[in-house]
């Protein structure tokens, strides 16, 4: 199963997501990237991340993304 960082790398291969603490501020993810990312996470982990949780704060860095996945029922 692909990890979140591997999925991010597929969406935006030009960035190093392990080297940033704020993907949004650093211009690494725009709103459509978030949609693509959520759709891939849903399929990969068999979940449906709630629409109200698709906000930039939850996609700032790998820690907030992992917290979102745990909230959505994924055991990491």
């Amino acid at each position, binding site marked *: 199963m692909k990890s979140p960082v591997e999925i991010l790398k597929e969406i935006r291969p030009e960035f190093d997501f392990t080297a940033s603490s704020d993907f949004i501020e650093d211009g690494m993810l725009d*709103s459509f990237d978030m949609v693509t990312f959520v759709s891939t996470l849903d399929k990969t982990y068999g979940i449906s991340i*709630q629409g109200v949780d698709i906000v930039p704060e939850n996609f700032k860095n790998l820690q907030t993304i992992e917290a979102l996945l745990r909230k959505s029922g994924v055991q990491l």
Partner: protein
Amino acid sequence: MNFTFRRKRISGLLTVVPANERSFVEEMKNFNFPEARSLKLKEVMGYDKRRLVEPGVCVSDLAVFGLQHLFDLSLLNRDEIDALFLVTQSPDHFMPPTSNIIQGRLGLKQDVFCLDISQGCAGFVIGLIQAFLLLEQDNIRKVVLINADVLSRKASPKDRNIYPLIGDGASITVLERDTEDSVIHANLKMDGSRAEALIIPAGGLRIPSTSETARLEEVGDNNLRAKDHLFMDGAAIFNFVQVEVPPLIESLLARAGISMDSVDYFFCHQPNRFMLEKLADKMKIPHDKMPNNVVEYFGNNSGATIPTAITFNLRERLLREKLRVCLAGFGAGLTWSAMLISLGNVDFNTIIEYK
């Protein structure tokens, strides 16, 4: 705000889409955006084909074409129309009302109530509410509701946030009294404090159109847009829909004493597939009960998406069957609205092409 109507029905639906079909794959090169990312977006959002008017085609052209089609096939008698409501965000002119123009071009009787309603993606339910209110009058027997927009003419072809999802089109819905003791529930909410989330900033009297407002500007994410163009704060609108629409539908069904399971279909406004799937998941509605294919085949044609979804997905089935459906629109204003209605045994339910 809640509404209840009795002994009213929809007796026919016609959708008019432009014959001119565009393909997302062909248009991808217009955006300053890597092809691979556009293709992923296509898959998730459902972007594929859409119908756009040719230059110069206006809302009244689509409406007149559709109504004339109904007259020609004797599906509607022009002398029976007591009211003609047009819901649009892209009228032919500031003045006069486009509904009057339609009346004049079709030679409808003078004893008719023409009214333009400035609403967009929530406009189908808003228009139905207005029509049902008017049908409370003894002398009003038949109301024609038109939802039509040609917003592709106000969208920047260089704006990937808006352009790939926009479609043009019109729907014509005929409403009349019901001999059965039917009950229709509706509710709506509005929040003008968030009006700027979905707006065409220039072109009205607040910011008149000038060469300056027509100039394309870099607006982030490699998109180019002018102040004369349609702007949507996509993230804000997405969040608005996910937060506000589920409780609106839940309160509507609770007031009607109807469970989610006993609704046959949920026809929501059709901005994109992703948003509707998230909405369905939130309310635990199976995806096949909430069709989301209008953006894929026609594009988002504003207030006409709900009737487009009904005509496209139910077609002949509605001619012989009655279904309990929940309608939900949301968009400019901000406005959000829902209606629970028994729909079926209609005289017509079809889609035609404007050429």
